[in-house]
């Protein structure tokens, strides 16, 4: 392992290369493009072995190419975000139903309209119900470490589902950070070659992607739910194995700080966790009983873990990077559902940083203090919004 200052997109590309993918296929989209550009350069340099690198005619085509490749028994990779992810969505639902362990990095970016190339989580949240595992990372070391783990989880026979590794666009993809770059031996010792239980082969002809009338469709969806439930255990095991293997422990489906005696839990996902952690430390130093819960796996949702972690808290502050229009922040919804009947904690959901809006430390601290001091009712609020007049009313 060698420590280097690299940009987020390189930390992804380097890690993907070490996982020995067979087919990489993508379509450029800001701010994901540099990930696949780096892979394309590695391909051009002959560094990817027998891997086929394909630039598709669209994200829809890229996802479709990977469906064919994955069903044929190839280890596959793609990266996308925003409009590209939404364009892929029809195929991704299909890939999940066909139980194809495609691994993809999402460089989280907002959705149009209005057009914005900057970061939030609206794109991956829109894929919430597709039966795709979603893990959010805090920094570029975590994304670098997570990619080999993602293959090991997705390709586990108890799982066999696509997996999205979500990293904040620009905030992580383009950030320079020191990263301990993995080497081939470390990854090879951790990640075995892909050996699918079934694949397209003339030696044993099978039919993939059948249609199912009402008498058998439902069972297919039942097993998908079971696979997601089993994924929780598989993920916990793989995360633990990784921590032992490389000596970096990123936690389980959630990670927590100061939660043992916390009265207020602050919940966040993605790159903002680093800032939230600092604010939590600051408040602790001021004598406030505040803890941090970092949600790593959003799907499967860590229901049991959050119940346990938040057993004794009175208030929960959630920082959301998305909104389910007509309801509230999606993380708050899931948290409340997980805690219903287990906890009477009040939930305060703050939607922040949509479309790359800056999230200053003062905003985070101000929200948490407001909740601690009882200056705000439980509910969902947009924070960091300026005064404006609506035009269409």
């Amino acid at each position: 392992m060698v420590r280097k200052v690299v940009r987020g997109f390189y930390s992804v590309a380097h890690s993907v290369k070490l996982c020995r993918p067979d087919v990489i296929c993508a379509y450029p989209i800001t701010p994901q493009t540099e990930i696949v550009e780096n892979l394309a350069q590695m391909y051009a340099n002959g560094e990817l072995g027998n891997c086929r690198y394909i630039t598709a005619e669209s994200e829809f085509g890229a996802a479709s190419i990977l469906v064919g490749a994955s069903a044929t028994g190839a280890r596959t990779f793609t990266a996308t975000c925003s409009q590209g992810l939404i364009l892929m969505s029809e195929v991704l639902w299909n890939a999940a139903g066909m139980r194809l362990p495609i691994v993809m990095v999402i460089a989280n970016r907002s959705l149009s309209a209005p057009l914005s190339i900057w970061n939030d989580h609206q794109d991956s949240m829109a894929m919430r119900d597709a039966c795709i595992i979603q893990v959010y990372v805090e920094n570029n070391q975590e994304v670098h470490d997570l990619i080999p783990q993602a293959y090991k989880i997705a390709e586990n026979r108890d799982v066999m589902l696509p997996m999205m590794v979500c990293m904040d666009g620009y905030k992580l993809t383009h950030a320079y950070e020191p990263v301990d770059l993995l080497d081939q031996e470390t990854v090879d010792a951790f990640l075995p070659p892909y050996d699918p239980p079934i694949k397209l082969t003339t030696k044993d002809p099978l039919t993939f992607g059948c249609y199912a009338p009402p008498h058998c469709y439902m069972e297919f969806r039942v097993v998908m739910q079971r696979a997601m439930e089993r994924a929780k255990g598989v993920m916990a095991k793989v995360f633990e194995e990784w921590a032992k293997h490389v000596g970096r422990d990123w936690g389980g489906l959630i990670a927590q700080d100061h939660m043992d005696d916390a009265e207020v839990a602050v919940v966040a996902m993605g790159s903002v966790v680093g800032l939230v952690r600092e604010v939590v430390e600051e408040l602790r130093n001021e004598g406030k009983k505040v803890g941090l819960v970092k949600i790593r796996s959003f799907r499967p949702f860590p229901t049991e873990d959050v119940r346990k972690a938040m057993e004794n808290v009175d208030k929960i502050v959630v920082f959301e990077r998305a909104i389910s229009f007509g309801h509230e922040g999606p993380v708050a919804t899931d948290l409340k559902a997980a805690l219903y009947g287990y906890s009477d904690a009040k939930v305060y959901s703050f939607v922040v940083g949509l479309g790359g809006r800056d999230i200053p430390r003062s905003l985070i601290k101000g929200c948490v203090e407001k909740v601690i001091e009882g200056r705000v009712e439980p509910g969902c609020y947009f924070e960091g919004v300026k005064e404006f007049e609506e035009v269409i009313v």
Partner: protein
Amino acid sequence: MKYFFSSGHGACPGCALPIAVKNVLYALEGKCFVVNPTGCLEIISSQYDRSAWGVPYIHSVFENAAAVAAGVEAALKALGREDEGHVVVFAGDGATADIGIGCLSGMFDRNHDVLYICLDNEAYQNTGNQQSGLTPPGSNTTTTPAGKVLPGKVGKKKDMVAFALAHKIPYVATASVAFPQDIRRKVKRAVEFEGSKYIQIHCPCVTGWGINSNDTIKVAKLAVETALYPIVEYENGELVRVRKIKEKKPVEEYLKLQRRFRHLFKHPKGKEIIEELQRIADENAKRFGLI
């Protein structure tokens, strides 16, 4: 005997699709991977637990068969398994010329080693005869119905042969279920070329076209003999072969056997459409030297 496409599938009596599919699979001796988008063929052959396929088969969604096939091909190459078999797409005309044309263009452009077969029954027949880009002018479909004002489809049949040729792929041909030996020969010839191959096979649809179930071959033959469906073959962009017509028949002989064109013989604009179709046939005959 080992089957490639078994009996017991759900095609309508007289359906042309199994004729085309079986001839392609026999020509390849079953040594192939089949990719099939949503459509007639998919729905008659791929119900869970009742698959008719004796070859590896994958269906993903409606508009991505060309891309899925590209992925299968790429994976076979990456895994060193390209000798296992050819990658073949069977796609309907709507999946090919309308909704799937983006993925098809991408696949052709990258020149993946895939044989793409368009089973052209000239409308969305799986769902009951809705107009596609390959529906001929004047055809009465449920989305271009003949009414007091409109005489069925207004517009042209998309020229997918020209589309394929524009991508400079090595092999492009048309065929018809009326000539199964020709289908087999073309398939064998096509797979001699490395890269993308396109064969468009004319497949009459008993229900959508409104023909007798024992007239499938007769109608298919008339489409060729009137020059409405020219049978052509291009290698590396050059026209190398056409099916000559011994005695060119007027288009009415083809039209009158089909319910989808019946209105043309009494509609105020019918005569105009029939003349247009005759003009298309005459131009085909001249352009390809069919006579």
